[in-house]
């Protein structure tokens, strides 16, 4: 019978030391809603889990208009959507945080875990990319920042090196007249994995799109940031017509596979529909700001 050790450090330094020493025989544990399931399914063979929930920096949740939003890597979804600043300033993050799992899962699941698990279907990653999010990482060689669109490098693969831990996620304060939205498609209304998803943000200028960002879920080995989709509509009027231009580019950029959750054709179709619908909601939200 196999034993796995459990450590619960109280500082980033301690955590980094533990992780560095054990290398790929250890992983951080946030809510455990991915990790424990994967351990049971024998997807990982570990000697050690390092609980991240007692490290202060990983539990931070702060916002101010000058410095933007910082979400500690282990902060659970319910705290995020329960925070009034996040609700009013970052509705696109709330969209994702409130649809991950159900109520029980949201009591544990973190956005840090969602990102580090690096599933193509991770619901919070596209909207976090839409908000220009940055990952703050600490490791044996100090700290570094990585733009979220560069964080995932493959299915279950990230830029994290031996001994590195994600400390927090940082988001600049959105510009005036901006809006964002994340939607996904699942065939049921609950308890399902995105067949495809779209996280978008727009900044408006006098009824036109000043800038836009589009990221897709579940249609490539990583969350797929489609820079061209946003670039193509900059300067165009904020209309459904314009949204169609971006959504057609998103559809063409998608590189999905056929599996039990959907076919290539169907997922591409969804990329078009979801990007367009998300852009229209983001535009509506921007107009209200």
């Amino acid at each position: 019978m196999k034993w796995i050790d459990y450590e619960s450090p109280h500082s980033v330094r301690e955590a980094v030391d533990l992780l560095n020493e054990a290398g790929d025989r250890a992983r951080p544990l946030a809510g455990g809603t991915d990790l424990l399931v994967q351990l049971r399914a024998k997807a990982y063979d570990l000697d050690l889990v390092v609980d991240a929930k007692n490290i202060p920096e990983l539990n931070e949740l702060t916002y101010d208009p000058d410095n933007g939003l910082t979400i500690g890597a282990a902060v659970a979804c319910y705290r995020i959507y329960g925070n009034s600043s996040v609700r009013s300033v970052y509705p696109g993050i709330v969209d994702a945080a409130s649809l991950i799992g159900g109520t029980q899962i949201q009591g544990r699941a973190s956005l840090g875990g969602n990102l580090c698990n690096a599933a193509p279907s991770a619901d919070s990653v596209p909207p976090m990319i839409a908000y220009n999010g940055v990952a703050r990482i600490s490791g044996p060689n100090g700290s570094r920042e990585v733009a979220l669109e560069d964080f995932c490098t493959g299915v279950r693969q990230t830029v994290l090196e031996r001994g590195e831990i994600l400390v927090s996620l940082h988001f600049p304060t959105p510009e005036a007249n901006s809006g964002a939205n994340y939607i996904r498609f699942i065939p049921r209304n609950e308890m399902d994995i995105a067949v495809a998803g779209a996280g978008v943000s727009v900044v408006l200028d006098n009824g036109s799109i000043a800038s836009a960002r589009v990221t897709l879920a579940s249609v490539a080995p990583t969350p797929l940031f489609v820079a061209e989709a946003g670039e193509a509509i900059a300067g165009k009027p904020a209309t459904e017509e314009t949204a169609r231009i971006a959504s057609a580019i998103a559809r063409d950029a998608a590189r999905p596979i056929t599996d039990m959750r959907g076919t290539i054709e169907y997922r591409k179709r969804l990329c078009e529909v979801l990007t367009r619908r998300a852009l229209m909601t983001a535009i509506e939200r921007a107009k209200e700001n």
Partner: protein
Amino acid sequence: MTQTLDYEPNMVLATKTYDVVGTRPVRHDGADKVTGRALYGADFATAGLLHGSILRSPHAHARIKSIDTSAAKALPGVAAVVTSADFGSDSDAVVDLGEGATSLKWLRDNVLASDKALYRGHAIAGVAASNPHTAEEAVGLIEVEYEVLPPVVTVEDAMADGAPILHDDLKTEELGEQTDTVSNVAQHFQHKKGDVSKGFAKADVIVEREYRAKTVHQGYIEPHNATALWNNDGRLHVWCSTQGAFTVRDAMAQLLDMPVSKIRVTPMEIGGGFGGKIPVYLEPVAALLSRKTGSAVKMVMSRADVFEASGPTCGSWSRVKIGGTSDGTITACEVELACEAGAYPGSPVGAGAMCALAAYDIENGTVDGYDVVVNKPKTAAYRAPGAPNAAFAVEQAVDELAQKLDMDPIELRLKNAAKEGTRRVDGPTFNRVGLVETLEAMRDHPHYSAPIGENQGRGVAVGFWFNIGFDSSVNLAVNADGTVILTEGSTDIGGTRASIAMQAAEVLGIPAEDVHPSVVDTDSIGFTAVTGGSRTTFATGWAAYEAAQSVKKQMIERAAAIWDVDADAVDMNRGVISSKSDPELSMTFKELAAQLGSSGGGISGTASVSPTGVGGSFAGNIVDVEVDPETGKTDVVRFTAFQDVGKAIHPSYVEGQMQGGSVQGIGWALNEEYYMNEAGGMDNSTLLDYRMPTSLDLPMIDTVIVEVANPGHPFGVRGVGEANIIPPTPAIANALQRATGTRLFETPMNPVAITAANGD
């Protein structure tokens, strides 16, 4: 959200009322269930318990060349390892355990494979160890050498020329004749009435289509489990989750070659079965492990095991050709139905073929059935097995015929409806049945004429299930306080403790709450067949009725003795025993019960029955769906289930059955399927990806209970558990056709299929 309804959401169209029967008392097992105290098989614990685990085949089709268990046996904590060789028998006698005749070798091989693994998940060996983790680790140490063979997972592929053959010794039975052809088709049979070519010649319109339904699982939440103790006195005791304790006992007796009297089976509380908890899987393995170790051995399946190794119901291919005249008379119908049996012969095609055309009074009809083996787990019963596959085809063809004839689909069905005296294509002539009343209730229901929104469509369909009788036993004993103990052998899956107790209470004239029902083990009650075939409230209820009649007679005799009058002069009505002539002589049931001890001793009644007056049940649905034209996502926005139940003993539990069957049908229609990969394995063996509907995917399902009494039962009961799963798949297909303009001929009718069929 509160909703104002302009109609009654749950209607009971009762034709006869009683004191207890037809009321809604709180179920006797309610407190245990809602407090979590009810004991299920996985709760079982005893001193010295060992834990078992099973090695399962990673291949869908492979020859087993060798099994080396030495490393597993050597692992500290491992008590025993068993394989098929431990059965110690190679008998291939033909046995019948209530689900049709089959070879003992196949039964044994399905429990532990001998020469071949026939589906991914097929059990190869069992391990008992001091804890579940060690057992699991030991399973990983068993070395099996396989010769991997190409798999075949659909009936069409399995029937094709040159298909990989599952059983070298399986020869096709063709229209009653045993042939020498080795193939995956175990049997081809035909039902025939009239002359279809003459019928089609008379038709003005003919519809001919092919349909496919995917393999689906019952999806009970409680996984299979079993604990076995092979005691030092040579007696075997099994505790398990089963729909039939006696069926488990008899299966074990056959598989282990021992007399039934040496086996005692205690049915634990059951967390759903729907037909899937009739066969044995873990029980014999736990028994073999217990025989080797001398300790009790407990085994529990994982969810993946449940999907991959316990019996789902069949996927199928079918073809329907139907013709009608312009006045709406169906002149002929031809049906072919090929059903997956899974790894061993015995698909539900027989029952499906019986039901296929049962709703129609057709002059000319044929139904051809094919029983086909494929590399999937051996199918088990699932609510009206085979009938949904047939109805998905026939009820769509009838719908299309109505559209071509420009007729209302309910009117077309009414015009051709089977009724008392109709001879079915498969032979039997209907006794009194309630299809016409069910269709009229559908036609007259406010749902049928309610306005419908954009992107919505409304569909209807009907279904028939014949129901069964079989053996049941009940014991009753009167307590001194006037309550009555009731013991029975029928697993309570849908509230049958209540519905059986209520039938005894009705006869005795006492409240339902004064009867205390228990489901007991096979040493404690007379033979009782499975809870299946919608038979329990009908047949075990009948045993309760008979046993209560016996108690009633004895109570009358006792009162007569106390009063020193002739028993003929005493009567018992509504719980009061009184003299027919002397108004002074009267006692309540309770008063007499208190005197039993001093007047000659206790009274008990017992009955073992095998009733023949079985009444079939018709069900119908009206369904509204709404389809997102861009994503193809379907929402069921309104659903009304109708069923002729004969008599609803406890209407709430009847409604529960109707709603439950409807939900399972909705799941089968829209999302559920065994998604098979190239290697013949199931990719989606988790509840996440199997996609059964959740409560958020369903509207409130309205019910209309139609009561056309079954003349073959004292209270008119028909049996309600199954017919309700038959109409949803075609009704939803018919609704989707109205909503999108496109008809789908294959389940699941999921967003991928809907968008693909609608082009663009």
